[in-house]
C-alpha cells in the first residue's frame, strides 16, 4: 500500500508538468505582429509632409500673387502720374495759341524745351493745328513731322473728338513702320480755337527691356492702349510673347480720354527664393524624417520581437528546467522509497502502517526513515530515525543505520544495546552528521512497549480519545559520542491503543515552541477516528504545512484487540 502510494505520487507530477509544458508554446503564436507600425509611421509621415508642403506652397503662391498685384498697382500709379507732364505743356501751348491767335513763333518758342530726343524732353514732335480746318495740316511744327499729318481724314476725325472732350486725348498710330502714340489738347469752349498735338514714337518692334536698375526689374510687362489686352493695341512689352508667361496681374490706368492696360508677371519669386523652395525643403526633410521614424519604429519592433523571442526561449528553458526538476525530484523520491521498507510485516494481533512525505523544497533526498521489524517471537521493533542534513550523504547514512538496526535486531539486541552499537557507526566530527533514532520494542501479546530514544521525539500513545507521549530518558543522538549509553522506558499499552512515532518534520513550525507543536499533534490525533492508514494520512495532511522544507516519516501500530 505504501509502495503503491509512493509510485502514484512519483508518477503523477511529471505527467501533469508535461501537460502544462505542452500548453505553453501556444502563447507566442497568439502575439500580434507589430509590423504595421512602421508602415503606419511611413504613411502618416508622408501625409503630414505632403500637407505641410501643400500649405507652404499655397502660402507662397498667394503671397506671390499679392506682391505682384502690389507691384502692378505701383507701376500703374507711376504711369498715371505721368499724365500731367504730357497734358500740361500741350494745354498751355493750346491756350497760348488761342490767346495769340495762332502765332506760330510764340508757339514754337514755348514748346521747344519739351521736344527732342534727349532725356527729359517729353515729345518727339509737337504741332499746332487750327480746329476749324485741320485738313489743311498743322500751323506750326516743332521736331519731326507728325505722322498724323499723313492721314488728313484720321486727323479730322481725331480732332473732331478733341473738341467734344475737354481733356487729354490719346490716339494710337500703331501701323508699321514707325508706330507712334499721339496726344492732343484743346482749350474747351473756344470755337475756332487751336489744338496742340504731340507725338511720341514707340519702339519699332514694340520691345523694350527694363533697365536692371529699375524698380520693376525682375518683372515681365506688357502695356496696351485702351482697356483690355488686344494684341493689335500692344504698345510695348519686354517679352517675346503675349500674354506674358506665368501668373499675370493687370491694372487699368485711366489716361486722358483713354486708358492703358498694364499686365505684369514675375520672372522669379518676388519674396526671395526661400519661400519658393520651402515646400521642397519640407518635402525633403519630411521624407527623410519619415524614413528615419519608420526605420526607427521598424528597429524597435524588431527588437521587441527579438526580446519576445528571447522571452519565449527563456520560457521554454524554464519549462525544461521545471520538467528536469520534476524528473530529478521523482528520481530522488523513487530512490528514497527504495531505501524504505517495501511492505510492513503482517503480525497477528496488530495492524501497522507508515507514510513518508517528501519535503516541498528542493530535490534532495532526506534522511528520515521508518521501519517495522518482525522479531518472529511475538515481538516487533518499531523504528523511526532522522539523519541531519539532506542529499545522498544523508540517505546513505540513513540506509546504513537502517540495515545495521536490522542486523542488531536479528541478534535480538535490546533497543538500548542497538542504540549504543549504532553510536560507533557515526561520528559528527568526521561527517558532520547526527541521527536521532527512536527504537520501540513492542510485545504484541503482553501489550508492552519499551522505548529507547537517541535524541528523538517521543512516540504518542492514543487510546479511546486520550493521547499521551511516552516519555523516556533522552540519550545522545547517534554520532555524538561512540559508546553512548541509553536507558529504556517500558509501558503497558491499553487494549486497542495506537502508538505513533514520527520525525520532527511532522510537527516542526518555525517560531513555534516544541511543546506547542507536540500538543497540536496530540490534539489532532485524538480528534481522529477511523483506520490506522487514514489516521496517519490525515495527520500528515493536517500538520504538514505546505511550505515545510523537511521530510516526514511517520509509523503507527495499533492493537486490533
Amino acid at each position: 500500500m505504501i509502495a503503491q502510494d509512493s509510485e502514484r505520487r512519483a508518477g503523477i507530477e511529471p505527467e501533469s508538468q508535461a501537460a502544462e509544458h505542452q500548453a505553453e508554446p501556444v502563447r507566442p503564436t497568439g502575439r500580434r505582429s507589430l509590423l504595421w507600425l512602421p508602415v503606419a509611421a511611413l504613411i502618416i509621415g508622408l501625409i503630414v509632409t505632403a500637407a505641410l508642403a501643400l500649405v507652404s506652397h499655397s502660402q507662397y503662391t498667394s503671397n506671390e500673387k499679392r506682391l505682384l498685384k502690389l507691384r502692378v498697382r505701383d507701376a500703374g500709379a507711376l504711369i498715371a502720374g505721368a499724365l500731367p507732364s504730357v497734358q500740361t505743356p500741350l494745354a498751355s501751348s493750346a491756350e497760348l495759341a488761342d490767346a495769340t491767335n495762332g502765332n506760330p513763333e510764340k508757339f514754337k518758342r514755348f514748346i521747344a524745351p519739351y521736344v527732342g530726343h534727349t532725356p527729359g524732353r517729353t515729345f518727339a514732335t509737337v504741332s499746332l493745328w487750327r480746329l476749324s480746318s485741320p485738313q489743311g495740316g498743322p500751323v506750326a511744327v516743332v521736331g519731326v513731322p507728325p505722322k498724323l499729318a499723313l492721314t488728313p481724314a484720321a486727323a479730322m476725325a481725331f480732332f473732331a473728338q478733341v473738341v467734344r472732350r475737354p481733356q487729354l486725348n490719346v490716339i494710337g498710330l500703331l501701323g508699321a513702320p514707325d508706330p507712334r502714340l499721339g496726344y492732343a489738347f484743346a482749350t474747351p469752349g473756344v470755337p475756332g480755337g487751336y489744338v496742340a498735338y504731340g507725338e511720341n514714337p514707340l519702339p519699332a518692334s514694340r520691345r523694350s527691356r527694363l533697365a536692371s536698375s529699375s524698380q520693376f526689374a525682375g518683372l515681365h510687362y506688357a502695356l496696351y492702349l485702351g482697356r483690355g489686352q488686344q494684341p493689335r493695341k500692344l504698345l510695348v512689352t519686354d517679352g517675346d510673347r503675349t500674354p506674358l508667361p506665368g501668373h499675370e496681374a493687370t491694372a487699368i490706368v485711366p489716361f486722358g480720354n483713354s486708358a492703358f492696360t498694364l499686365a505684369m508677371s514675375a520672372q522669379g519669386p518676388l519674396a526671395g527664393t526661400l519661400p519658393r523652395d520651402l515646400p521642397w525643403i519640407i518635402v525633403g526633410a519630411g521624407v527623410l524624417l519619415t524614413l528615419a521614424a519608420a526605420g526607427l519604429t521598424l528597429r524597435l519592433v524588431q527588437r521587441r520581437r527579438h526580446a519576445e523571442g528571447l522571452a519565449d526561449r527563456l520560457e521554454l528553458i524554464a519549462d525544461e528546467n521545471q520538467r528536469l526538476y520534476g524528473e530529478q525530484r521523482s528520481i530522488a523520491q523513487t530512490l528514497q522509497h527504495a531505501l524504505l521498507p517495501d511492505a510492513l510485516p503482517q503480525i497477528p494481533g496488530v495492524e501497522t502502517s507508515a507514510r513518508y512525505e517528501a519535503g516541498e523544497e528542493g530535490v534532495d533526498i532526506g534522511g528520515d526513515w521508518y521501519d517495522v521489524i518482525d522479531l518472529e517471537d511475538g515481538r516487533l521493533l518499531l523504528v523511526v530515525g532522522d539523519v541531519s542534513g539532506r542529499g545522498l550523504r544523508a540517505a546513505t547514512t540513513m540506509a546504513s543505520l537502517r540495515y545495521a538496526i536490522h542486523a542488531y535486531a536479528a541478534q535480538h539486541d535490546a533497543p538500548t544495546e542497538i542504540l549504543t552499537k549504532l553510536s560507533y557507526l557515526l561520528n559528527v566530527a568526521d561527517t558532520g552528521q547526527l541521527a536521532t533514532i527512536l527504537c520501540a520494542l513492542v510485545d504484541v501479546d503482553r501489550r508492552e512497549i519499551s522505548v529507547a530514544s537517541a535524541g528523538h521525539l517521543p512516540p504518542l500513545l492514543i487510546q479511546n480519545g486520550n493521547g499521551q507521549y511516552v516519555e523516556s530518558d533522552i540519550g545522545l543522538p547517534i554520532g555524538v559520542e561512540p559508546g553512548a549509553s541509553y536507558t529504556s522506558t517500558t509501558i503497558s499499552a491499553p487494549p486497542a491503543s495506537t502508538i505513533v512515532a514520527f520525525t520532527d518534520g511532522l510537527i516542526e513550525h518555525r517560531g513555534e515552541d516544541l511543546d506547542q507543536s507536540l500538543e497540536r499533534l496530540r490534539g489532532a490525533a485524538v480528534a481522529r477516528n477511523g483506520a490506522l492508514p487514514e489516521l496517519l494520512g490525515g495527520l500528515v495532511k493536517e500538520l504538514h504545512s505546505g511550505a515545510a522544507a523537511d521530510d516526514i516519516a511517520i509509523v503507527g501500530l495499533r492493537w486490533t484487540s
Partner: protein
Amino acid sequence: MDELEPHQRVELATDAAGNAIVRISGDLDISGIDSVQAQVAPVLAEHPAKLIVDASGLRFADSSAIALWVRWATTARSFELRNPSPLLRRVVTAMGLAEKLAVTP
C-alpha cells in the same frame, strides 16, 4: 534572490579569558551550515580554551545547525551554547544535547 543572501550573520570575538566567541544571528538552517562552518574553522584551528556560541540573536536553528554545534563541541577543548531562545533550548533538550552543548544559562 532570497537564496543569495545569507539568512544568518556570524561575528567572531575573543573574551578576556581567551575564549573564542561565535555570535550567530538571524536564521541558521541547512543552507547556511557550510558558510558558517567555513567562517568558524580558523577559530577552531587555533584550539581556543573554550568555544562559546552566543545564540542570543538567533531566531531559528534547525537540526543541521544543532549537528554543527555538536561537531564543534566534540572538536573543541570546551564548548558552551550561550543564551539560546527558549524554543531552541527546548529542542536541544528534546534531543538530549543540553549537557553536551553546555547550554547556559
